[in-house]
């Protein structure tokens, strides 16, 4: 089970901030989201959007093993 979190403009665009999905890799997670909402999936892959798995920034298409948290982070604005 993957806990998916969206922040900033990504959450506004999706209309949700958190949900739970089943996926074994980040790529599969992106594909599931694209099936439902292609515009959102495009935004999640957009420039400056970083992905954190269990609060650590990742690149590429890591495997998601066991329960984990995947966060999509738009460009940070500072405080």
């Amino acid at each position, binding site marked *: 089970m993957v806990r998916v979190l969206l*922040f900033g*403009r990504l959450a506004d665009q999706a209309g949700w901030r958190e949900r739970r999905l089943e996926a074994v890799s980040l790529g599969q997670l992106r594909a599931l989201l694209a099936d439902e909402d292609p515009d959102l999936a495009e935004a999640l892959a957009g420039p400056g959007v970083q992905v954190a798995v269990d*609060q650590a920034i990742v690149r590429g298409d890591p495997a998601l093993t066991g329960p984990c948290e995947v966060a999509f982070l738009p460009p940070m604005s500072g405080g």
Partner: protein
Amino acid sequence: MITLTDQPFEPGAVLTAFCAGRAETGAVASFTGLARAEQGQAAALELEAYPGFTDAAIQAFAETARARFRLQDYRIVHRIGRIGPGEAIVFVATAAGHRREAFEACDFLMDWLKSRAPFWKKEHGPGGARWIEPTDRDRTDASRWDQE
């Protein structure tokens, strides 16, 4: 110590607690960032953090500041959620033996917090809400420290 809070806070009260019992400190610099009304153009600011991730990033950065400027201590309070005009957004205090280190560390922490810390900021104004990106000046200020 680092605190993220969705409640208004009083920077002076934080400074009082931070200065207490410092018989060997000498220098405490502080910075308070207040939400500007912008003559009614900014009705409120909304700040989003990623709990756990944002605190950890601030902590890691503050520890580099502590080492770089030989700080004795630091205190950071950052608001999240909806912030009204005139309310404190951020408070940073640094304690050192001498003022140069205290000032530079406070300045250094603020440049990073304002431009690179993991927050997402939305401004609510008369024409609706918009997400804000760091300004060029924020980037320039923060990059001053990279060159050294």
